[in-house]
């Protein structure tokens, strides 16, 4: 991709050191795991069958 070249080109001026991301505090269970599981069960076959193809083709031409 053409952007890749430019990225390397600009890195020398003002490169950012990699940031250390603080670790998130352990989240409590806010919505019941059963509810989430039942939703995931319903979508599971969709995720298993065509995820890659769907994602690859999810490209929009426009934008703000």
């Amino acid at each position, binding site marked *: 991709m053409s952007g890749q070249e430019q990225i390397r080109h600009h890195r020398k001026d003002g490169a950012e050191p990699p940031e250390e991301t603080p670790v998130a505090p352990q989240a409590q269970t806010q919505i019941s795991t059963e509810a989430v599981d039942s939703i995931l069960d319903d979508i599971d076959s969709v995720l298993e069958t065509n995820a890659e193809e769907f994602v690859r083709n999810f490209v929009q031409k*426009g934008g703000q």
Partner: protein
Amino acid sequence: MKRIFGLETEYGLAYTQGESRRVGPEEIARYLFRPVVEWGRSSNVFLPNGARLYLDVGSHPEYATAECDRLPDLLAQDAAGDQIMVELLGQAQQALTADGIDGRAHLVKNNVDSAGNSYGSHENFLIRRSMDFSHLTTVLLPFLVTRQLLVGAGAIIPAKVTTELKPADSNRANPHAPARTPQLDPGQLQFGLSARSDVMWEGVSSATTRSRPIINTRDEPHADAEKYRRLHVIVGDSSMSQTTTELKVGSAALVLDLIETGVPIEDLSLRNPIRDIRRVARDLTGRTELELSSGQTMTTLELLGIYLRRAQKLVTKGDHSLGDDATAARVIDRWQRMLTAVDTGDFALVAGEIDWVIKRQLFDRYIARGDIELSDPRIARLDFAYHDLTPQTSIFKQFEAKGAAARAVAPESVEQARHHPPATTRAHLRGQFVAGAQGAGKDYTVDWVHLRLNDQLQRAVVLKDPFSAEHEQAEKLIAGLDGEPAAFDV
């Protein structure tokens, strides 16, 4: 204090392949807008509820709410837009099927596609021309950089920040041309607050510059330009959760109220807002130290806490623009609980109210069940499913149906807003005019400010005051239309 609010939403279109040929977003958009074109003879129409429905450049279906002067009206109008789009989608699916196409079209209310194109949400706030605009943006910008901790949609983003890129690498001269997230080697991914942060390259600028600003200074007030200007905020995510939308727009409006009522606020300007918006997006704990122009440092949580306390005082005095005190109190309460939730890690405090929190729980659970990586396409697919409005495949709608996602607007209010404009703004006149002219079978031209019947030689009625639901000439024009007002029923 009164203010006009508006929300514009660009929707994404996707397709699940069946046995027949592939259908792309442009073609789905044409199917989607077929009933709109039949109704209004254009793919760019104003509806009887005062809103604008149109196909944006590049076949993005877009819905812009009517002018609202109360936050609850805005939420209803926004939800009505989703509903109208879903109804159009249902019709499009039927038409596709009738044409022998067996795949499924999807309507997605999200913020980024697989190629890194960014789109989604524009928030509009009417502000007084008498305001010192530069002071306003100085106070507002640090808030907008950090607001994502309260209301981000949640996104899988590269763990490394990418501020070394120059604006020219990711942006374009035409504000309506696609904007791309720079395609770095993704490397390590992480769950972050918002994908929009990585496509922001300037704090404040006009749309004609090359880089995408957090606040766009395009000055189209759609009102008396001597009195008003329109603040165009393009940094926010589209929200699935109504309670997230309420906090997103409500908190920003309260910060504007602070500025416009002249409350003195210390200078919280960030030294490097564009670097910081990326750092904030990558920190779910709110503890990233931000460097202020004054030389002080402050965490995201501290900064949002300062704005909260100021806003709280304003709300206590009743000096706010949200429309009613109960709404304002709700916004303050959710803001407070969210900061506490982030601070303590007890996200049960905001259960079902904030998009990124709901989405993170969904992802965490999915990863735990399947032992998969964040880079797995099934995670990206799950992300799209969260934002999917397609009834058969929408995950968020299931959260709502199970009572696991809170609502901020009653279904009856959404139904009302689906057909009727807000009663207290200029949109009231526009909506009546559109319905009346449609019912009378008249040719007409309408935009945010003008109403005109094409067969009359008289000039357009000009509605320069968005706060006024009354206008003698407009009322006369509407009264002169014969026949029953027509609904937009698709």
